[in-house]
């Protein structure tokens, strides 16, 4: 039995259904990231787990105990808010110990707990300051301290890094990951940033319009997206989703991509998924990540199925660690990821290698994966 279980959870505001039957579960010590565009219901889902929003139907269980009707303070959870939500009238120490004070913990025990948390987060020198005297990163730490001090069964993070600048965000991300590794707590984390999702999670739930689009490990989500939305949303730069058609040559399938002002490319599909044969002569969406479309020398050596084609390079973007080249296939801009020192010029034709082992296919009508 999983540690956190959410069964058929629905939430309705008047006529509008915000959450349309969510089923998610998380093992003890796991790190679940709820990711999706704004308005997908991820924050509402987190609030229902916290008990800050009521649910219309379904059940939430934490450690085997149904918590549907429990007050937030009785659910044994702690929450870190996007705005940190530090009480402006209290010192850092007051903020951290407010929950204990409300539960009637004696003063000397509170002091011990504060000191312990302050040591873990290295905020000992800030304890007597007011939140207005802290920097963004320090506030973030205090907010985490307030959650840590409760030693709860479940941590809830609501976009905790979105108010920080880019560099600090990366630092705090690593810190959260380290915290998770050392304390072994169970965490549910909401973000709209797919990189945070990929780097932090043990499990990801990709959400859209109140539904879970795909639930799985980061690798599953990244390599085996179950539909067009997940494929497009996860990964940066995004997966290339190219309109294509399926053709047959003999009894082997191939995927035909239109090139600008030249004859189409035909990519032979040695290990095509079984479902693809039903699409012969029909349009599909051919998905390939930028790192699977690269210079032939940079292509993975142990990939079994590589096809090379000459492509017209429109734009070259050197990004330091990599070089991105933009070409045009099927009427869309397609990004290829090359080695940093790849010798490539815009306006020329260059052979690029497709790693077809990693290619995925989608039905344009249903947007679902063809398996």
């Amino acid at each position, binding site marked *: 039995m999983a540690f956190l279980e959410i069964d058929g959870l629905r939430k309705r505001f008047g006529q509008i259904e915000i959450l349309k039957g969510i089923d998610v579960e998380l093992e003890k010590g796991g790190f679940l990231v709820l990711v999706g565009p704004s308005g997908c219901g991820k924050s509402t889902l987190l*609030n229902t787990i*916290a008990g*800050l929003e009521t649910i219309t139907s379904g059940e939430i269980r934490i450690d085997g105990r149904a918590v549907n009707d429990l*007050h*937030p*303070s009785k659910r044994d*959870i*702690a*929450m870190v*808010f*996007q*705005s940190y*939500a530090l*009480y*402006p*009238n209290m010192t850092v120490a007051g903020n951290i110990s*407010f*929950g204990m004070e*409300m*539960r009637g913990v004696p003063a000397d025990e509170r002091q011990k707990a504060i000191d312990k948390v302050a040591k873990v987060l290295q905020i000992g020198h800030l304890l007597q300051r007011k939140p207005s005297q802290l920097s963004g990163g320090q506030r973030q730490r205090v907010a985490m301290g*307030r959650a840590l001090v409760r030693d709860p069964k479940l941590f809830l993070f609501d976009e905790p890094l979105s108010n920080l600048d880019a560099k600090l965000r990366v630092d705090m991300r690593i810190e959260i990951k380290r915290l998770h590794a050392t304390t072994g707590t169970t965490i549910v984390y909401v973000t709209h940033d797919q990189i945070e999702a990929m780097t932090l999670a043990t499990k990801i739930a990709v959400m859209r319009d109140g539904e879970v689009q795909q639930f799985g490990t980061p690798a599953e989500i990244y390599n085996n997206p179950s539909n067009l939305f997940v494929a497009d949303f996860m990964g940066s730069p995004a997966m290339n989703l190219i309109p294509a058609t399926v053709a047959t040559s003999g009894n082997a399938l191939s995927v035909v991509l239109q090139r600008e002002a030249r004859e189409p490319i035909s990519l032979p599909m040695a290990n095509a998924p079984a479902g693809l044969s039903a699409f012969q002569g029909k349009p599909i969406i051919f998905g390939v990540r930028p790192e699977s479309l690269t210079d032939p020398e940079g292509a993975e050596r142990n990939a079994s199925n590589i096809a090379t084609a000459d492509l017209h390079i429109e734009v070259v973007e050197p990004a330091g660690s990599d070089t991105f080249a933009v070409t045009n296939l099927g009427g869309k801009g397609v990004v290829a990821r090359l080695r940093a020192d790849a010798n490539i010029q815009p306006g020329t034709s260059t052979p690029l290698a497709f790693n077809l082992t990693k290619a995925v296919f989608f039905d344009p009508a249903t947007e679902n994966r063809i398996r």
Partner: protein
Amino acid sequence: MSTVATPARPTASRQASGGMNVKLVNRIVIYGLLALFALFYLMPLFVMLVTSFKTMDEIQNGNMLSLPKAPTFDPWLKAWGETCVGLTCAGIKGYFWNSIKMVVPAVIISTLLGALNGYVLTKWRFRGATLVFGLMLFACFIPFQSVLLPMATILGSVGRFGVTLQNSIGTSLGLGNSTVNLVFVHVVYGIGFTTLFFRNYYEAFPTELVKAAQVDGASFFQIFRRIMLPNSMPIFVVTVIYQFTNIWNDFLFASAYAGTGDSMPMTVALNNVVNTSTGVVEYNVNMAAAMIAALPTLLVYVLAGRYFVRGLMAGAVKG
């Protein structure tokens, strides 16, 4: 033709200096008018102040605007302790305390209720919260005069209930007492305004703080007392000044519900001081009494005034 062809420069500089002159004249006119209006506005206060320090002789024989030749505190002392209000001649000090006894509870109660209302209307929204707020807002637009009679009826019933209590359990719990009546009237009338102030302030108050406190296990009133109130200083000052000034200066309710007897508030007493017709009209005493009546509101403004504008603006922008 040569005049047309003259270089543009001198003309331009002449225009520029002309512009300077116009600017200067504008400034003079603006500040002159401001000074004039300020003088006009402050004139009554000045007359009151100088008159209150003069002897009756000087008032009768001298110029109204001239400064007192030999300033004396006697009129102030007389107004405070000796002057006649109606038939009793013990000064206005008793009525001054009457007003304090009435204003302080009325301001505290109406402000706290307004804060509570604002808290519920923004952070514990219920179905129909907007309608309730609309109706409370409506209370701000009811003219004083139109509630005089209905309120008198209600206070009458409350008073009779007080008498019943007095006869059965030995205490009326203050029901029927005219100071208590005035506190009640002002609280009821003030709730609309205080709710408006606090609702607009709390509308912009981060809801995440309330959620965090809920997760921390704070109850409804603990959140109110520990989180909301300590962070409401600006709007508190605004509300207190507004309510204090309104209730202290109120004459209509005071004269209608406590217009006679020992519990009449300052405003009514002041009216009676001026209207008491025994011999000479003691202008200096009247002026001193009026100054004393105006002092508390003045004091509240001086002590908290700088928050006043700031708080009003905060409420207005975020409302």
